[in-house]
């Protein structure tokens, strides 16, 4: 499935796509694949303030539970309500299935994130493949 070049990535396997000050956050195909069948996504509420690098929720599969880390700081403007009843959508297409949208507080934070190329290299080093 790969990693879209226009996204930025965290080492905790979230992606963010940005237009102006509006960010959309999801998890990467690599982490959905290693988690396997996702059964529950726990998300913050609209209006919550997120801080870069801090936990904002969790994603739980049959096998394991994994924390979600915010790529940037900002205020949550929407959460993907579909995932309440259909969390498996993340497995089906992690690149397109967003978890939440937020308004960026400081666009400079994006520079600390990984490019698709850097993320792919990071993952291959992590897995040894």
């Amino acid at each position: 499935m790969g990693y879209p070049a226009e996204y930025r990535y965290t080492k905790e396997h979230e992606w963010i796509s940005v237009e102006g000050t509006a960010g959309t956050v999801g998890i990467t195909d690599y982490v959905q694949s290693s988690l396997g069948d996702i059964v529950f996504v726990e998300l913050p509420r609209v209006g919550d303030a997120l801080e870069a690098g801090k936990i904002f929720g969790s994603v739980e599969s049959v096998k394991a539970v994994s924390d979600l880390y915010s790529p940037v700081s900002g205020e949550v403007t929407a959460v993907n309500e579909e995932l309440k009843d259909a969390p498996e959508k993340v497995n089906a297409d992690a690149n397109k299935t967003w978890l939440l949208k937020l308004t960026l507080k400081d666009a400079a934070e994006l520079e600390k994130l990984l490019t698709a190329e850097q993320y792919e290299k990071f993952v291959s080093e992590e897995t040894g493949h």
Partner: protein
Amino acid sequence: MAEMTATLRKTALNATHRAHRAKMVDFGGWDMPVEYSGLVAEHMAVRTGVGLFDVSHMGDIQLRGPGSLAAVQRLCMNDASRLAVGQAHYSAMLNEDGTFVDDVVVHKLSDNDFLIVINAGTREKDVAWVRRQVGAMPGIHINDYSDFYTQLAIQGPKAEATLQKLTDVNLSAIRNYWFTWGKVARLYNVLIARTGYTGEDGFEIYIPSDEPTSGRVWSEVLEAGAEFGILPCGLGARNTLRLEAGMALYGHEISETTNVLEAGLGRYAKLEKGADFVGREALVEIEAGGGPKRRLVGLEMMERGIGRDGYPVCAVSGEKIGVVTSGSPAPFLKKNIALAYVPVQYSALDEVVAVEVRGQLVKAKVVATPFYKRAGTKRP
């Protein structure tokens, strides 16, 4: 982890698993497939059709000679004198204090020949234990045959129809926990046992562990099961299947710190079998003292949240009273279930307790195990 890969043990099917892009994990020192197409799909295939597992990491100790029955009786808590040739049963090797060295399946190959199937992660310990406990007894020969067998588990309501295509042995005549030998996939004298660890009907076959043979039989079973939607399955599905079926896993429900009675496996400990076995005295004492103080129970989560291995179990007041030993969403039952140790006073059915899930108390109810029981079988 990458640098550890070189030291992991591999089954003869390792290259096959990797070629089929299975997700591999370190399981008890073994590089094993945890998942092929997906845990839930694999779990459902076993419940509704058929699945194929590589369980070659399991160990095999053979005790032979005129003293072998006496040795098995000394080592294992169940009564092997009641086994007929061609029959197997669940049993365990215990420490002096009634805790588990390992849980095992004992197969009676002949009057003077027993095969004990042991867990992968405990192999060295088990072999050393067997030699220490019975190595000096007269008339026995102990062998570790673990590396000589590729063990395949074919499990599910369509397991018999699948395997039947590869053998002339009348599989429907093999009863649950019995076995025979026969030609399978052009291999002579394959041990075919109607055993498994999924709560479903099925077979385990023991074939030579060379790579070409193992790979060939693996492929032939998959071909034979294709019309039933067979899926190659990983240890992830094996774990959720055995959990739904309420079966204990070594290192979780049973270990060196849990005894047979609290684990609810007392029915397999034949205290009156007429032979002293290691751990017997401790079990007699625990029973005489009013039974165990804690018990393994089944829990069903009543609220959103999944109790996982190691999570604390609390009274609804919040006081910590026990611990989850295995917990997961149950793919077939579509409930979140767990096995947990709780004090006896909290172990009655319908008792409401709580599991501390990442800092939050989530209510759970004590329910009967097995969580899942397959419908009546048509076997003789």
